[in-house]
């Protein structure tokens, strides 16, 4: 990346974050709540995009990592009464570890096989949630106890039932993940990742360990998705098997494709549009999931690069 491109991207990301931060002062209650949810889901989509957009691997099973974070955090809080920061840390580690193990297996496959195998592993994870109902309470799920709705940290108390607190925590996580990904992509390792995406064979013949490069991104992606899941569990206080279902994997794909795979801010944009659209449509019809189908097909047929990807192609080649 050239210096000016680096500056532009940094500036753009900064502006978006500042904007998101100040939105909490002007949005009505419901939209603060929606905003919180969107930012957490954006972290999930960011994690998904790290894999699809920057190493070119399309996973159909990312709900499994979201769920790993969700249950990693939720179950330790629910059953063992862990403090929320400890549960969050554990959940991120657990999903990273899961990604390491799953990645080591599924990265032996490519393209269509990769998609199907990730889908199947996610299905196994979903069924596991149902099967170990003694711990997870299956489809019904668990609500975190009242004691888990506040964080005590360095003498201060954060009340998680406060909408503004939740908004800022979600904002902090999103900002952190965006910056992390930005730094990673601007680094030498990030260059290797995109090199793998652009031309795997060539990259290997330049002396790079392609498998390790993919695995590294897979773990980063899984950990980020897991962080989103953990945040979702702790902020909203409910965990259930729906979060592990196929539809959640598809939503991550949808957000990313719509916003633009391989663009830093695309997933965020995709989440904003999609979640708002789904929310509005659900007021009008029960068949609101129709929009998922329509958007998927429209994007894949006419805008395969997504919104930001198309903008990058036409007007802003510096966009990361």
């Amino acid at each position, binding site marked *: 990346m050239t210096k000016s491109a680096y500056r532009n991207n940094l500036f753009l990301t900064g502006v978006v974050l500042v904007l998101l931060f100040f939105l909490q002062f002007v949005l009505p209650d419901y939209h603060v709540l929606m905003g919180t949810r969107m930012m957490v889901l954006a972290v999930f989509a960011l994690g998904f995009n790290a894999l699809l957009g920057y190493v070119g691997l399309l996973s159909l099973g990312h709900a499994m990592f979201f769920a790993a974070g969700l249950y990693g955090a939720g179950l330790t809080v629910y059953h063992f009464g862990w403090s929320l920061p400890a549960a969050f840390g554990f959940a991120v580690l657990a999903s990273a570890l899961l990604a390491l193990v799953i990645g080591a297996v599924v990265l032996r496959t490519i393209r269509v096989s990769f998609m199907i195998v990730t889908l199947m592993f996610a299905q196994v994870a979903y069924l596991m949630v149902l099967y170990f109902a003694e711990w997870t309470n299956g489809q019904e799920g668990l609500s975190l106890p009242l004691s888990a709705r506040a964080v005590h940290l360095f003498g201060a108390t954060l009340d998680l039932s406060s909408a503004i607190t939740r908004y800022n925590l979600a904002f902090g996580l999103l900002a952190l993940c965006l910056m992390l990904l930005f730094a990673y992509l601007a680094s030498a390792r990030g260059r290797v990742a995109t090199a793998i995406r652009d*031309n795997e064979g060539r990259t290997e013949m330049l002396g790079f360990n*392609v498998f390790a490069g993919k695995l590294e991104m897979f773990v980063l992606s899984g950990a980020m998705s897991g962080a989103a899941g953990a945040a979702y569990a702790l902020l909203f206080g409910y965990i259930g098997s729906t979060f592990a279902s196929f539809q959640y994997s598809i939503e991550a794909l949808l957000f990313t494709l719509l916003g633009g795979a391989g663009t830093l801010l695309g997933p965020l944009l995709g989440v904003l549009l999609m979640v708002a659209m789904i929310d509005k449509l659900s007021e009008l019809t029960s068949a609101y999931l129709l929009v998922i189908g329509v958007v998927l097909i429209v994007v894949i047929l006419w805008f395969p690069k997504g919104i930001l990807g198309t903008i990058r192609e036409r007007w802003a080649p510096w966009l990361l």
Partner: protein
Amino acid sequence: MASLTPLLVTSGLKRHFGGVKAVDGVDFTLHEGEIRAIIGPNGAGKTTFVSLLSGRTEASGGTIRFAGEDVTRLPAYKRVQRGIAYTFQITNIYQTKSVADNVRMAVQGRMQRVGMPAFDFEAETAAALAAVGLSDRAETIAGELAYGHQRLLEIAMGLALQPKLLILDEPTQGLSDAEIENFLSLVRTIAKRATVLLIEHNMAVVMALADRISVLTRGQLLAEGTPSEIRDNAAVQEAYLGA
């Protein structure tokens, strides 16, 4: 010219695809500093042979030793790190990256090999581009280059790796006569620092460049020698003319 230390030795090297014996027991020795050409009719197993050397294809049998080390089971990227560079028969570059970025990836690859010393990225990149004469196109998107220039970029990436052994797979294919002239002097420059192994159909190029020539037919080594020895070899003539 050739030193006596063998850089690369294969013994009994085999590669079978199902029932097809693409490479069938090749004993081959390459010395440091030489320019070696491999020739042979179509389907003789030349590309498979160099793929085995570079690690892109796994050997069914036999061993490969490089600089005294057994590399038979090493994955390709590790062989690159040990100094075997390979340029593809069909140009294989990062189509969407700029020419300079293409070379930078190669420089980064080398940096990883020598282990992160203070390293002038841009100088290394510029040097490799200058060596092949692409300096003025550094910011062009690689996919938009003319074919001949893409081949040169391919070689620049090989150079930027600063390999001990550079394998060139049909480097002159599709080049014009003027470009070939240019190419010949380029390879001679490279050969001052690295050993060169090339697969080539253009006999004029082979005769002009190679110190020694190896001839492959049906996966086996038929003959080996200096250009004039090979030119006079009856068996080689028979293989080529199909007597």
